[in-house]
């Protein structure tokens, strides 16, 4: 990896972090650093505690032991985490949790308003972010009428509107169809922020991650990403095969 990166101070630094729910330990003594421009893949089985780790990192779960340092500032109390959350954007696993305003524009403007922007400035900011994601025509749509893929893109817009320096993505492509996934990934790939990405999806990790860690048995270990040639399954309509069209599609 580029040696100049490791000289910089970490954006997020976690030391000996442990979380347990009612006597049952989820993970124990987890330590890692996130540096600028890094895209860290966090992998692990279902229930390994990946979501819990992300939530703890930004103070949504205050039952933890260990040390969390964000942007050089040790975070222990809610007030400190509030400052941290302004710089760390969190894309939730379920976009229905994230979009709660009546219309898309209000939802995207909600964060900027909380950051102290005026109503006009917040609206301009929201429109600008929507435009950058190619979602400008959705501004006046009602949030609960959107499709799953649209909801995820708007949820990303609500996070980006706060201009975070770090993005935490919890299974960003979960539940999306192939084309929605590709659209989302293309946008995520174009972002300059450091990221922690939780995903089971090989294509997500291949496309986004610069390094990986594995959460297993309550411990975090360095993981190696490697590529191996493999077959994969494509599905085509039968008549297309007959007409020989799919040969062209594969080129």
């Amino acid at each position, binding site marked *: 990896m580029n040696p100049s990166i490791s000289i910089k101070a970490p954006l997020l630094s976690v030391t000996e972090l442990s979380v347990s729910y009612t006597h049952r330990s989820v993970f124990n003594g987890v330590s890692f650093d996130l540096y600028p421009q890094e895209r860290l893949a966090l992998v692990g089985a279902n229930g390994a505690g990946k979501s819990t780790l992300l*939530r703890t990192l*930004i103070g*949504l779960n205050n039952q933890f032991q260990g040390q969390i340092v964000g942007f050089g500032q040790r975070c222990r109390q809610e007030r400190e985490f*509030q400052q941290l*959350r*302004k710089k760390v*954007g*969190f894309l*939730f696993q*379920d976009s*229905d*949790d*994230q979009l*709660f*305003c*009546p*219309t898309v*524009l*209000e939802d995207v*403007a*909600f*964060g900027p*308003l*909380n*950051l102290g922007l005026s*109503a006009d400035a917040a*609206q301009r900011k929201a429109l600008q972010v929507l435009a950058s994601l190619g979602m400008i025509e959705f501004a006046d749509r*009602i*949030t*609960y009428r959107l499709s799953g893929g649209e909801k995820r893109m708007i949820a990303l817009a*609500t*996070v980006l509107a*706060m201009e975070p320096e770090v993005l935490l993505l919890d299974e960003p492509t979960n539940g999306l169809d192939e084309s929605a996934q590709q659209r989302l990934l293309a946008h995520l790939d174009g972002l300059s922020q450091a990221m922690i990405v939780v995903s089971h999806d090989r294509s997500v990790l291949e496309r986004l991650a610069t390094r990986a860690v594995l959460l297993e048995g309550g411990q975090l270990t360095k993981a190696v990403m490697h590529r191996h040639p493999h077959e994969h399954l494509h599905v085509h309509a039968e008549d297309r095969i007959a007409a020989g069209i799919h040969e062209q599609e594969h080129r």
Partner: protein
Amino acid sequence: MLASQLQAQHHLSRFSLSDPRVNILAAGIFALVAVLLTQWPALMLLLGLALLFNVMAGTRWRSVIKRLLAFETFMLLLVLMLPFSMPGETWFRLFGLSATIEGASQALTILLRANAVVLALLALLAIREPVSLGYGAAALGFPAKLIHLFMMTVRYIQVLGDEFQRLRNAMKARAFEPASNWHTWRSYGWLMGMLLVRSMERAQRIVDAMRCRGFDGSLYLRSQLLWRKSDSLLLLGLSLLALVPLVWQQFLE
């Protein structure tokens, strides 16, 4: 979801294009008139007006009737109980209980009044996008807490409904058939309990998501309502129509 079912798709009427404040105010005036009317002929006229509103709104009769039926089952109870529970002149006796004429007439009044109001609400309010009614109410100065409660309800009722449906389907998929036995009641109890727990967890996640975006207790609505001259005219027309039965009642007395 509601609005689109109630109204024929091709038929977007004045009532669904006007400023939502028109609909809310007109519904309020209509309900007020309904409360003030006591005479049957005037109430009949009001019911007729409510039907006329439905014609003007272009509501689908099929869905209007479906909604009315649900309401009527509740009214049935009242109509059956009231004659027996009000004192007055005996009309007839049943199982040693006497039904009174006063009670029966009161029941009929309430039946007419309630049906007129429900029909008018269907034509004026139910055809609107719920969100736009929220904006209208906010612009009319309803308390902000109430508006946000309403908006959140609108937002999540569908999500909850989907969750309920998923749980129901999971039960059906394992050959659950409701019957009047202990197993059924216990299963429904679990279903409801599960729904409650999931809703609370979801509420917690929503609050978390709001905190992530710097929520500090205040919510904002972007009002983009525009009161046009045609809205004034529509409100005036609807109000005058609604007042006709009241004026007529004055003549009847």
